[in-house]
């Protein structure tokens, strides 16, 4: 009823004032929606949908830089299955994602709980804590690379002075340590994101619930486990899913710190795809490596979609 009233009024008005045909067209919700969505659809179509199709197409050819390839079917993927470096990269990516996610969540939650209290300088602290996340990753990673430098490492100096080590540690040059070092930097960069997002989640929880539990005799640990954590879970899940996608597809951090070395000890999907596709110029093989990430990402996206739909219908 109300809606039809509105239409009549504006129609009457439209009759009294001269309108361009285009203005009348835009009064139709469907046409307006079409016009409003057009720029987005063009850009996303050209630079997301088209590259995706093109990527699938490339991955079933033997194209190299400057050489349009021939159709070779699943050849590139078969090659990958037998490629020992690819297997190492898959394993590294899984370890890298799993370990960093656990630590980022645990430390981020801890930091969020600390920041959720009232103390002097809280706003300032929160602003400074986000710095690792907002400063361009490549640039801050260079600071870490310098801190890990085998000869001039400040970390080695500190450990040496504390009497914990007696000789230098080659953080990025030792195949066993390199992945750990890369993981540490990723955690360092990710904790602020977790902390600030979870803090936002914590702030939506009514403090009276805590008080009520406290009156009922719940200890701080129990209050966290039975009151705060279940209420924080929805935000946590979304944050984790986002972060898993980003970490799984990470590139810049490893590119700067080790370039995938030593001896592929820190090779990830993305760095290997770059090395093969851009470094060696085997476009089709590189595209196949990138696309091999897709099934995993798809699963995360589906979980995310199902979950968001559930939240919306609640």
């Amino acid at each position, binding site marked *: 009823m109300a809606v039809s009233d509105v239409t009549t009024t504006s129609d009457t008005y439209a009759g009294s004032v001269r309108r361009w045909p285009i203005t009348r067209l835009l009064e139709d919700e469907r046409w307006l929606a079409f016009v*409003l969505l057009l*720029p987005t659809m063009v850009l996303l179509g*050209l630079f997301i949908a088209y590259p995706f199709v093109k990527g699938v197409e490339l991955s079933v050819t033997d194209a190299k830089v400057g050489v349009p390839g021939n159709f070779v079917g699943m050849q590139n993927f078969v090659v990958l299955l037998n490629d020992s470096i690819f297997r190492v990269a898959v394993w590294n990516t899984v370890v890298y994602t799993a370990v960093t996610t656990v630590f980022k969540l645990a430390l981020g939650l801890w930091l969020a709980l600390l920041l959720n209290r009232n103390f002097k300088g809280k706003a300032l602290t929160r602003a400074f804590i986000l710095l690792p996340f907002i400063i361009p990753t*490549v*640039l801050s990673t260079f600071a870490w690379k310098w801190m890990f430098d085998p000869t001039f490492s400040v970390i080695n100096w500190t450990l040496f002075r504390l009497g914990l080590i007696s000789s230098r540690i080659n953080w990025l040059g030792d195949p066993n340590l390199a992945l750990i070092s890369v993981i540490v930097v990723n955690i360092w960069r990710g904790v602020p994101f977790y902390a600030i997002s979870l803090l936002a989640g914590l702030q939506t929880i009514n403090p009276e619930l805590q008080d009520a539990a406290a009156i009922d005799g719940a200890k701080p640990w129990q209050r966290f486990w039975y009151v705060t954590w279940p209420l924080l879970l929805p935000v946590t899940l979304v944050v984790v899913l986002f972060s898993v996608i980003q970490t799984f597809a990470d590139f810049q951090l490893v590119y700067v710190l080790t370039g995938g070395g030593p001896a592929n000890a820190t090779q990830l999907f993305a760095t290997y795809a770059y090395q093969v596709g851009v470094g060696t110029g085997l476009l089709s093989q590189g595209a196949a490596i990138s696309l091999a990430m897709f099934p995993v990402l798809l699963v995360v996206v589906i979980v995310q979609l199902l979950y968001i739909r559930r939240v919306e219908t609640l």
Partner: protein
Amino acid sequence: MIEGAKWRRWAFFYIPLGAFIFTLLFPFYWMLVTAVRPDSELYRPWNAPNYAPFWTAHPTLDHITYLLQETLFSTWMLNTLLISVAATLISLFCGLLAGYALSRLKFRFAGMLGTAIFITYLVPQTLLFIPLADIVRNFRLGDTPWALILTYPTFLIPFCTWLLMGYFKAIPRELEECARIDGATRWQAMIHIIFPIAVPGILSAGIFAFTLSWNEFIYALVFLSSPTEKTVSVGVTSELIRGDVFYWGSLMAGALLGSIPVAFVYSFFVEYYVAGLTGAVKG
């Protein structure tokens, strides 16, 4: 307030928080110290007796002068600024219109399009960079700022749209209906009534998009090749390292100066940035 005995406060609050702050900020301090430290001190091994890591007695601006005069650093800064601002504006424009359409208008496939945009939001750059490099070359955009100005919106638009949809949904429909009763067209109501109310959302989306653009690396690395076209991240990575030799002083100076624009924008709009960040997650 923090309850309990004094030692408990220290053990469970001040010490852990202090440790977090120290660890999270130390690399930036290290950048700063390295950037102003003369080479003679810089390349003194850590086990040398006079190794003084945490300060310098002879601060110098040599690395910064070298960076600004002998390298293309200022060109990279301008490139990055231009690309980030342009990509942000394009994304805000598209995101505003798309966000409005998806949250306010009824049309077929609205739900499907919303989901599609959300999915593109989750597509990482590393999934598509190889075919995209090919496409950029075919469009003759390779090695120009346009290669990035047009491709950055692919990860910025979905984010802006998603964030702004949240803002639009919170604005009561009656406001728009009032305007239309007074004779405004849908278009006018959108521009004059809804968009002004969504300004905080636009600001959040814009700031977040700007920092994301400034941070982007792999597209810039793959699509640009001339030293004069590079962005800060790529320029610092590729031009300040000669073979195996790292110019750590100027590298750190570059990292520091290259971070300033983002830190500057961030410092003025922390609240909006946080709103963007948390809005991005919650949707």
